């Protein structure tokens, strides 16, 4: 029986395993050095915050794996011998495979800061980071202040985590406004305000110069490059992005770039070796996506796709329209299609903000054709299916605004803002768009 070995038990590897099992009777083994069982990385923050216990982060009960004949091996793969199709573990064990899927995910970036390996310095990515945080920042007595370096999604989550235990946080962001490489100015500033209102000491336009140690080799303080200011702290969170976790592949014959180089079929340069998820790097970026996409659902989709290929239905990885979501403290964010931080030449924008300054929508559309390109929505939930269909059908912004009631996905009885949104657009553009009533038939009709 063909033996499929998957390195990494994150969402990509586990999805691949599940789908291979659905499609075939092959022997499947998942190797992980991190945890015995699959857990949801995105939920680690909620364990620290006390919303959940670690066991709640596991999407499948422990019996699931045996029942589905998915073997789990705990160990660290040191290198891959692709000629003889063998994996060597750091403890000397050897595992043979017929087909190999590399799904080892990411690791937090470190940019060679002095002191970056001290005790009390950590990323927020692995289960071990959570354990570390629990050790160095269990409360505000042990940790009087934490400094977070890097203003992305993980950074703000870590800030929220520490804040939940009343630990004072200084948040160092290199950019002039939070995540403004991705978010347009308006949204980015809204999040700046949200961070400050939560009582987090947000510092924009600053870089980390060094992390200083006390006599025990643990963090004592950090120094800011621009001002030379030294901030005393007990924990430093490094959240300046992630990069593919592929160190163990260096020296193997597998082609590497930033990640494991793959073609559209998620195949590497070596026969029978595939790479999926955060660690995979497309030779050519797909549409407007990045060559390395460290997003939960892309990992899942690559798992779904590679399972087909491995089970005899060789198929290209073809992600559909871009979408994503996040939550910044109390503000939920969803995006469908593309809304760049700055409009491209052919693009125009429509922005509406609620008077609470906690909700907004930002629509990107084509200046000339009025074709809808994308939407950012903050504090208002929208229907994925609606926008997926809109993008496939290449509808106009007028169509989107007319059908905003169909798009809304807020819980029942929520105050709706569609009338005001449409009125604002009409006023700004001298149009006469009339809001249509919500229609179930439209909502459920397929593209």
């Amino acid at each position: 029986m063909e033996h499929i070995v998957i390195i990494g038990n994150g969402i990509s590897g586990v999805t691949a395993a599940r789908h291979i099992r659905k499609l075939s009777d092959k022997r499947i083994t998942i190797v992980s050095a991190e945890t015995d069982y699959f857990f949801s990385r995105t939920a680690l923050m909620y364990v620290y915050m006390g919303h959940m216990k670690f066991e709640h982060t596991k999407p499948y009960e422990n019996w699931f794996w045996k029942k589905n004949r998915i073997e789990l091996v705990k160990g660290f793969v040191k290198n891959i011998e692709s000629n003889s199709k063998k994996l060597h573990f750091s403890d000397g064990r050897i595992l043979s495979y017929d087909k190999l899927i590399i799904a080892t995910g990411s690791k937090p970036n470190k940019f060679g800061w002095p002191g970056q390996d001290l005790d009390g310095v950590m990323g927020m990515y692995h289960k071990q980071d959570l354990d570390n945080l629990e050790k160095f920042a269990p409360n505000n007595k042990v940790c009087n202040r934490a400094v977070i370096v890097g203003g992305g999604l993980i950074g703000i989550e870590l800030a929220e985590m520490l804040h939940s235990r009343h630990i004072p946080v200084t948040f160092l962001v290199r950019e002039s406004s939070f995540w403004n490489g991705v978010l347009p100015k308006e949204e980015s500033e809204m999040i700046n305000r949200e961070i400050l209102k939560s009582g987090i000491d947000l510092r924009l336009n600053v870089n980390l110069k060094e992390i200083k140690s006390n006599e025990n080799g643990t963090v004592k303080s950090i120094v800011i490059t621009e001002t030379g200011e030294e901030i005393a702290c007990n924990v430093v969170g490094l959240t300046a992005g992630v990069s593919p976790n592929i160190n163990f592949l260096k020296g193997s014959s597998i082609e590497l770039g930033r990640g494991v180089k793959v073609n559209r079929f998620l195949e590497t340069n070596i026969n029978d070796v595939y790479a999926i998820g955060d660690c995979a790097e497309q030779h050519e970026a797909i549409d407007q996506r990045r060559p390395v996409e460290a997003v939960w659902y892309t990992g899942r989709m690559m798992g779904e796709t590679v399972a087909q290929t491995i089970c005899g239905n060789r198929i290209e990885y073809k992600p559909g329209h871009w979408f994503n979501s996040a939550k910044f403290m109390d503000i939920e964010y969803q995006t469908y299609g593309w809304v760049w931080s700055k409009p491209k030449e052919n693009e125009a924008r429509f922005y509406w903000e609620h008077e609470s300054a906690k909700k907004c929508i930002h629509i990107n559309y084509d200046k000339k054709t009025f074709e809808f390109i994308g939407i950012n929505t903050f504090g208002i939930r929208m229907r994925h299916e609606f926008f997926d269909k809109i993008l496939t059908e290449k509808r106009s912004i007028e169509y989107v605004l007319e059908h905003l009631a169909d798009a809304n996905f807020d819980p029942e009885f929520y105050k709706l803002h569609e009338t005001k949104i449409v009125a604002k657009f009409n006023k700004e553009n001298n149009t006469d768009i009339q809001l249509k009533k919500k229609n179930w038939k439209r909502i459920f009709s397929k593209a």
Partner: protein
Amino acid sequence: MKIIKKSGLLLFLIGLALFIGTIFTGTFSLNQSELDDFVKEKGYKSEIIKVELEKAIVTTEDLNIFKFSSRIRNAYKTSNDYYEALIAKYDAEKNWDKKGEQYQYKIYGKPHSLSFTLAKKAGKGLVVENTGLLWFLTFGLGIIGALMFIIPDVVLLGKPGIKNDGIFLNTATNRGWIGWSAFIFLVSFYILLYFYPDLIVNWVYLVDPISESISGNPASQWFLYGFLYCVVMTVMAVRMYIKYRHNKYQILRTTSVLFFQIVFAFLIPEILVRFEKPWYDFKNAFPLDYDFFFKWNLDELLSSGGFGLFILVWGIVLTIIIVPIMVYFFGKRWYCSWVCGCGGLAETLGDPYRQLSSKTLLSWRVERIVIHSVLIFVLVMTGFALYTFFYGADQVLGIKTQTIQDIYGFLIGSIFAGVIGTGFYPIFGNRVWCRFGCPLAAYLGFIQRFKSRFRITTNGGQCISCGNCSTYCEQGIDVRAYAQKGENIVRSSCVGCGICSAVCPRGVLKLENGPEKGRINPTDILLGNDVNLMELVNNK
């Protein structure tokens, strides 16, 4: 703010301690004429009970409730033992006439209930003489303290939004020692209420003035329970309003359950009694209202004229027509988390414990077996009751209707719904009864699963499998298992509380009513992936 919160807790605990303390206060005795009145009113023919009760409680001794109760139960036992001995004797002698005669002297009823009735007439001392003051020191301090503990959260919890910080780090909500203490308290309370009402007669005295002002009658232990229920729900509803102030669905739902509890379950029935109508809760549908078709209830309704008949028709229409139609349009949530009293308590007092429900596949299996067994039990029992009512036979197939009714009342009505259903909140989550026991929920569940417009829509491919939804599902549904597959949640047990949708950090879940077509949508590949692949896999 923290000081207010802490002093609130202190006041609450003082109130609680005094409340428990009142059990041990007061003395209980009757004088001769009071006892004579009682015996006459009850129509006891036994000579022995008169003498025994006189010996027991017509006294100048200071009897506390425990001694009083034990003496009364002894008196009844002595009397009944005496006549049972005679019955046995005549039985042996085959003297049937004499044997038959003895039965009229036997006294039926639960000893603790008989003792409660007397204790309610016999109380003297602290509580009886200072009802108002003591009410303030127990209920009053409890309410004020609890509100002082809860209201500062407006500030302390920070901005509106989901505030579940520290729930699993707190011993009150993670099955720690405070949780276990609450468990012991609640279980003891229900055991006392159902089986030893005489021991908590002082609590009933506390609410006598309130009962008299509403129904004109002194309070029973059930009035105490109803009043306490409303008070607890109101105070804990304030907590809900603060915790979910950003979520209008939760605000409206909380208001609705509170309204139906206070008006329908508490005020209207008591006011009906004032007008000498039968006590009836218009929203309590059979088979949750399991004794609706019992002979005594039907007899009472039929003898109450047009109004009784109206109740009878309403009760039947409610179960057979209104309930299923509403479930078709809105899901069973319209009842379970918007109207029902059990649901109301679960959603207010029980909200802090919702995360403790078990999500395992095993518990789902157990749930389906147990809840459907209860449904079958209640239906069989009702069959017996109706047979008895129409044909007058007190037994069917050699089994006494009364026996079945007693077993159901004890096992399901008291132990399951009360002691376990609420007592186990701090251990197994707040919907133990609704999930594993309620026969009405089982009935609504069938309709919700097979013929309803209600579903929880999963928002395409946005789920990140974080598990907040499953963790906070009070019914123990593994919501995530559906959401991460892009599949709508259509489950018979879902009571539509809406918390999964509220706690979702990515806006994935929405409770909604829509066309039946496409409601159940099993998928293998989620929205967002290659369209051809989705079609290939999902349309197979």
